[in-house]
C-alpha cells in the first residue's frame, strides 16, 4: 500500500514536484531574508567594533568624557604596563592600543614647498609587531589598492581616494601637521607606501594609517594611547561576557578621584550604540517574524488547496473501502514528506545563496556617496545556526497544518456528501 501511494505521489507532479518547489522557494526566501537581516545587523557591529568601539574599550575617564573631540591631551600614559595586566587578566581577549588623531597631510614638491594639502583623520595602530592582529582585524591586506603595507618605521597608508585627490604617488613623502599630547605643534615626515580602500565610505574619504610607535613619536605620546580596544577572538559581540569583563576591570582599575585612571566601556555603552543595536535587533526580529508568518500563510494555503483539490480522489478511496483514519494518516505522511524535502532543499539553496552574499556581498557604494557613518558599503548576509532551522517553520509546520485542517473535512462531511459535492 505504501509503495502504491509513493508511486502515485512521484507520478503526480501536482502532488509532488510542484508542492516541493513551492515549499522550497518559500523556505529559500525565508532563509535568505533571515541571513540578510542577521548580516546587516552583525556587519554593523563588527565594523564599529573593529574600527571604533571594540567590544570593550579602555580610555582615561577624562578622555571618555570628551570622546567626540578625540582629546589626545587626555590620553592615558603607561600603556605597556596596562597591556601586560590585560593580557594576564583577560588572556582570551584581543587587546589593541590605538591613537586616533586629526591633522593636516601636506605633500611637498621637489623644493619642499606645499604641492597639495588636505585634512586627515589618522589612526595609529600596531602594524610592525610580528604578533599584532591589527592587519587581520582591519582587513588591511585586502584593503590595499596600490603599493604595500608598512614594513618599517615612518611608512604610512593613505586612503586611495584622498591619495588620488592629492596626486600622491607611492614612495612620495607626506608630512603630518598636528598637535602633540601636550598641545604644541607637531610635524612629522612619512613615506607613503600604499593606498587603501575599506569599502567604508566614511573611512575611505580621508584617512591615514600609521604604526602606533610612529604616532607616539610624532605626537609626543611616549607609552601613551588614546584608547585600548578589546575584541572577542571570533569578532562577534557577546553582551553578557563584555559586561562581566568591564565590571571586573573597572573594579580593579577605576578610581573616581583620578580623571586619568582607566575606565572600560562596553560597545553598547558607547555613543548610543546600545539603543541602536537593540533597535536594529528588534527591527530585524520583527522583519523576520513578519516574513515567516506571511510565508507560513502562503505555504499553509498551498497545503490546504493541495488537499482540497484531491477530495475527488479521497471520495473514491473511501468508496472503495479505505477507512478515514488510514486515508488521513496517509495525507499527513505525504505532506510531511513534501514539507521535509521542500524545506531541506529550500534551506540548502537558501544557505548557498546566503553563503555567496556572506562572502561576496552586494556593493552599495554608489548609494553611499555622502555617508558619514562608519558603515560598510558592501552589504553582506550572515549565516547563523538559526538559518538552518528557521525554514522548518513555514516549510514543515505550515504545510502540515494546511493538510491537517483540510483533512478534517474528511471527518466533518458525510462520505456521500463529500463525493457528491466534489462531483465524484
Amino acid at each position, binding site marked *: *500500500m505504501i509503495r*502504491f501511494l509513493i*508511486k*502515485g505521489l512521484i*507520478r*503526480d507532479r501536482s502532488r509532488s514536484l510542484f508542492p516541493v518547489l513551492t515549499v522550497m522557494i518559500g523556505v529559500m526566501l525565508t532563509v535568505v531574508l533571515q541571513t540578510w537581516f542577521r548580516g546587516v545587523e552583525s556587519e554593523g557591529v563588527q565594523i564599529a567594533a573593529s574600527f571604533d568601539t571594540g567590544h570593550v574599550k579602555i580610555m582615561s575617564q577624562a578622555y571618555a568624557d570628551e570622546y567626540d573631540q578625540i582629546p589626545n591631551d587626555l590620553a592615558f600614559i603607561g600603556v605597556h604596563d596596562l597591556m601586560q595586566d590585560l593580557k594576564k587578566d583577560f588572556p582570551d581577549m584581543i587587546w589593541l592600543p590605538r591613537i586616533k588623531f586629526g591633522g593636516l597631510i601636506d605633500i611637498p614638491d621637489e623644493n619642499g614647498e606645499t604641492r597639495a594639502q588636505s585634512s586627515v583623520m589618522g589612526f595609529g595602530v600596531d602594524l610592525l609587531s610580528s604578533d599584532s592582529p591589527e592587519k587581520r582585524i582591519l582587513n588591511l591586506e585586502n584593503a590595499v589598492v596600490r603599493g604595500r603595507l608598512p614594513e618599517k618605521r615612518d611608512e604610512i597608508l593613505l586612503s586611495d581616494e584622498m591619495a588620488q585627490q592629492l596626486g600622491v604617488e607611492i614612495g612620495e613623502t607626506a608630512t603630518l601637521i598636528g598637535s602633540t599630547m601636550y598641545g604644541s605643534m607637531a610635524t612629522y615626515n612619512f613615506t607613503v607606501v600604499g593606498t587603501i580602500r575599506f569599502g567604508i565610505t566614511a573611512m575611505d574619504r580621508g584617512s591615514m594609517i600609521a604604526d602606533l610607535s610612529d604616532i607616539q613619536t610624532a605626537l609626543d605620546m611616549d607609552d601613551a594611547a588614546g584608547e585600548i580596544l578589546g575584541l572577542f577572538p571570533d569578532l562577534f559581540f557577546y553582551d553578557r561576557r563584555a559586561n562581566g569583563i568591564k565590571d571586573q576591570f573597572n573594579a580593579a582599575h577605576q578610581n573616581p578621584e583620578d580623571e586619568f585612571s582607566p575606565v572600560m566601556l562596553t560597545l553598547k555603552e558607547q555613543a548610543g550604540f546600545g539603543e541602536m543595536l537593540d533597535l536594529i535587533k528588534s527591527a530585524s526580529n520583527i522583519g523576520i517574524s513578519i516574513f515567516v508568518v506571511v510565508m507560513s500563510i502562503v505555504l499553509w494555503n498551498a497545503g490546504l488547496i493541495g488537499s482540497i483539490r484531491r477530495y*475527488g*480522489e479521497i*471520495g*473514491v*478511496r*473511501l*468508496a*472503495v*473501502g*479505505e*477507512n*478515514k*483514519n488510514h486515508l488521513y494518516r496517509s495525507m499527513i505522511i505525504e505532506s510531511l514528506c513534501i514539507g521535509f524535502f521542500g524545506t531541506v532543499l529550500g534551506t540548502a539553496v537558501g544557505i548557498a545563496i546566503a553563503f555567496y552574499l556572506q562572502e561576496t556581498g552586494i556593493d552599495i557604494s554608489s548609494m553611499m556617496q555622502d555617508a558619514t557613518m562608519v558603515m560598510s558599503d558592501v552589504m553582506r548576509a550572515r549565516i547563523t545556526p538559526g538559518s538552518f532551522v528557521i525554514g522548518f517553520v513555514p516549510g514543515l509546520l505550515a504545510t502540515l497544518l494546511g493538510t491537517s485542517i483540510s483533512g478534517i473535512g474528511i471527518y466533518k462531511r*458525510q*462520505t*456521500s*456528501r463529500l*463525493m*457528491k459535492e466534489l*462531483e*465524484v
Partner: protein
Amino acid sequence: MNNSVIIKTKDLVKVYPMGQHDLVALDHVNLVFQKGEFAGVVGPSGSGKTTLLNIIGSLDTPSDGSAVVLDRNVETLSNKEAAKLRNQHIGFIFQTFNLFPVYSVFENVEFPLLLQRMSSAARKKAVYDSLEWVHLADRAKSKPAQLSGGQSQRVAIARAIVKKPEVVLADEPTANLDAENSHHIMKTMVQLNEELGTTFVFSTHDEKVMRYLRRKISLIDGKVAKDEVISKKRGKST
C-alpha cells in the same frame, strides 16, 4: 433475515436540512433485494435514487428507519466497520468512472485488494481475472487517459468486481456513454450477474439500461411508486 435476502430497507427515511426547510429524499421506503438480483431504481432527477444507493452502500446513514445490508445495520456501523463492509462486500460503479489518472489500469483495479492486504501473487491473479471478464487484459499497462469512455467504465467494473463482492451498486453507469458502449457495459454486467451470481442494483433513468433490468423500482419524490418484476431469469437476453 432470510438467507437469500441480501438487502432490506424498512421505513427508510432520509431528510436533508435545506435552510429553514427539510428536503425529504427518501420517504418510508420498504424494499427487499434477493441474492443475485439484477434490479434498477429508476426515476427522475431528485427522486432519491442516489441517496438510496448511498445508504445501501454505507456511504450515508438513514434519518429514520433501517437499512440492513448483508446482515449489518448500516446506521449502527462505525466508520471503520462501514469501510470494511464497502471494501469486502460492496463494489461501486460511478457515472464518471472515477479512475485514478496517474495509475495504470492494472493498478486501478488492484487498489481495493491492497486494502485487503492480499499477497502480491493473489492480487495479480485476481486483477487479471477481473480484466479478462471485461476484455481489457491487454490494456493492463495503459493509463486511463489512453482509454475510451467505454473502456474506462469497463475498468471501473473490473475494479468493482475484483474483490468478488456480493453486491455491486452502479450509479448511472451509462450516463456518459454512447448507445453502443452502453449496451456493451450492460451485457458485461448481465454476464457477471449470471456467471458469478453478483447482485446488481442500478440507479438510472436511461432507457437503454432499463431494457436489461429484471426488476424495476420506480421512485418518485422519495417514495416507491412501483416495484415490478420484469423477468424471472437472470439478466435479459436480447
